[in-house]
């Protein structure tokens, strides 16, 4: 998840928490002040909630892992570029590694 998406998500959650707390306080006062108990939620709390929800969704979508192309050839191209070919094990064959040779090679280049 990138920094921006994390920031958006956290901000959205804070905003949502604030809105929730405000709504709680609002209904608390309504009950204790015994004014018209049918009063609807103030518009600013509603706006805050909806904005927070939208921002959260945005943060999540922005932070999601990138989609992969469905076409195998296109996907393989990307992998090949980044050196992540899923088939390279067939040519490197870790099960058959020659550990003595690898060690010798490494030691000789280090000197």
């Amino acid at each position: 998840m990138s920094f921006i998406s994390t920031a958006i998500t956290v901000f959205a959650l804070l905003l949502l928490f604030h809105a929730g707390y405000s709504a709680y306080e609002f209904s608390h006062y309504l009950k204790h002040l015994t004014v018209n108990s049918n009063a609807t939620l103030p518009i600013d709390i509603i706006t805050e909630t909806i904005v927070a929800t939208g921002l959260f969704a945005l943060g999540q979508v922005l932070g999601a892992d990138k989609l992969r192309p469905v076409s195998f050839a296109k996907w393989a191209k990307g992998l090949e570029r980044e050196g992540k070919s899923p088939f390279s094990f067939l040519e490197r064959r870790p099960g058959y590694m020659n550990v003595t040779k690898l060690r010798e090679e490494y030691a000789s280049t280090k000197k």
Partner: protein
Amino acid sequence: MDEKERKQAIYPISTESLQQNGKNVYYIRSVTSTIFGVSAGILGLESYYGFLFYFAGTAFVSLLLFLLLARGQPTEYFASANDIWIGNALTGLSSFVLTWTLFYGLVDA
């Protein structure tokens, strides 16, 4: 071997990609619907309005997925364009109902 099968063999589709993308979308759907439930509870929505809120939110997420994640080309990343609009639309419903109920009760002091 019919024509379609042949084409599929020549230019194969990566099932791994399909699965991965599906999982991606599924995750976003379920996390966002949980938060939709929280919001619906805070807003004190009742009956139809709550479910309407859920579907509106889901549609909004679909739009975001279409524009930001699939960059307007859902067929590049999914078996069909519907997968991004309709697919998984109901997966988050039970989570939505859970958090909706919870916060509906919590906010009501």
